[in-house]
């Protein structure tokens, strides 16, 4: 569905991504991990059409990605900055519907259904400033779902949340992925999160960003916050990724 074909990105003479090639298959959840500076967020921004590669090509369904598209939604890490503070929760979701040119009739019911799906039932009239971090990120996800995306680009979406909230959002995200069938590119620096969520994990090595490890995650679904994380297979995968990250970090020193 999304293909990176020898994608290079340079800012001046600084090479950020050095020839990245991989594919995200339809309905797959692909997690990108790596130490800071490995270009994982940059790769996501290229897939979202926000950044154009210096050379090589990123393709969506066979066509070169020339810019953002409405069926590719982006969940930003800094939810507080990505929401319109002067609009209510319903108004923030409405922004996506307005952009899509969705008919005005039935919009309120549609918005309520979207908010309910992300666990914000009855929060229509709240302003983002009246919501907790977890609720704000749920709201941003609801706005993305309003785009009816074929693919979701998630840039460390739960990185700023506390552990309990993060775990419930992880499970909610897996439910949403299952229900909508959206293809997901998920960037995180949390190894366990990557394994828990992903069908596949790609680890990037830095300077310049390149693929260092690729692991298919053969853990059964549905996954469980306790049982999955305690399974020997999970721990073995975690060990493998940990050794990889540790290896590139000590090599960088």
């Amino acid at each position, binding site marked *: 569905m999304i293909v990176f074909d020898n994608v290079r990105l340079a800012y001046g003479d600084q090479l950020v991504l050095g020839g990245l090639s991989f594919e995200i298959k339809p309905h797959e959840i692909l997690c990108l991990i790596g130490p800071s500076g490995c270009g994982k967020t940059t790769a996501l921004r290229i897939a979202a059409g926000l950044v154009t590669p210096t050379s090589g090509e990123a393709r969506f369904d066979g066509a070169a990605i020339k*810019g953002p598209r409405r069926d590719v939604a982006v969940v930003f890490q800094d939810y507080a900055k990505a929401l319109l503070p*002067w609009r209510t929760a319903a108004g923030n979701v409405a922004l*996506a519907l307005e952009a899509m040119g969705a008919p005005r009739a039935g919009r309120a019911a549609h918005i309520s259904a979207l908010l309910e799906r992300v666990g914000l039932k009855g929060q229509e009239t709240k302003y983002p400033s009246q919501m907790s971090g977890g609720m704000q990120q749920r709201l941003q996800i609801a706005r993305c779902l309003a785009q009816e995306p074929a693919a979701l680009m998630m840039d460390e979406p739960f990185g700023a949340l506390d552990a309990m909230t993060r775990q419930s959002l992880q499970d909610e995200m897996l439910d949403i992925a299952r229900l909508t069938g959206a293809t997901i590119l998920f960037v995180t620096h949390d190894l366990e999160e990557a394994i828990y969520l992903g069908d596949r994990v790609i680890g990037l090595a830095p300077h310049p960003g390149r693929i260092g490890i690729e692991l298919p995650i053969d853990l059964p679904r549905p996954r469980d916050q306790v049982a999955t994380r305690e399974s020997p297979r999970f721990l073995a995968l975690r060990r493998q990724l940990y050794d990889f990250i540790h290896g590139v970090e000590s090599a960088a020193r």
Partner: protein
Amino acid sequence: MRGFVLPLLLIVFAEIGARLHGASDVLAPPSEVALAFVEALRDGSLALATRDTLIAAFGGLAAGAALGLALGVVLGVSRPLDRLLELPLEVLRPIPSVAVIPVALVALGFGYRLEIAIVSFACIWPMLILTRAAVAGVEPRLLEVARVLRLSPLATVVKIVAPAALPRIFVAFRLAAGVALIVAVTVEIAVNPQGLGAALMTAGQALRPDLTLAFLVWVGVVGFALNQLLLWTEARLFGKGAAR
């Protein structure tokens, strides 16, 4: 209430001081200023002068603020245009608005048009500069959200940039309103034979310190009332749920 203590004391001292000093061409005791004020109120000269000044101030404010707002939004959104117009605007901006009077007088003659033109010239700048800063300072992430949603440039301005910048733009408008009153009265004092400025000059030249001071205090009251009105409007518009 405590805010009134000092002014009241000063008025009492001024009254005593003026009485002890005797008649003067420069200063008048507050009681006589009050009498002159009532007189100007009765014969309608105060209302007429206030009306003339406010028409010119509001007319100039409307024109100048609209122009400054439009330019500020365009320059805040477009870096290339901002760079293109930076030099000409920075050359025009330091020109004192009263220095435009001779040119405007030849072109427009005495009257409202002269005053409105000069007031609008003065009002453009605070509006332009603060609007440009407000627009350029809109959270970049929100503009990225607009890109991801593929909002048109117009929709981006209407849905994202304008509401994000509006509270700061209103502050700019409040500053411009203050400038408008100052410049209107200044133009009236300098050349234009109408409004509160001209009334001040006439009273001064007629050696009526009581009437001069009455008009002077009145100008302050008008400016204060205008600012209070705008502050109240601002609180009503942006008090709750607003981006700061």
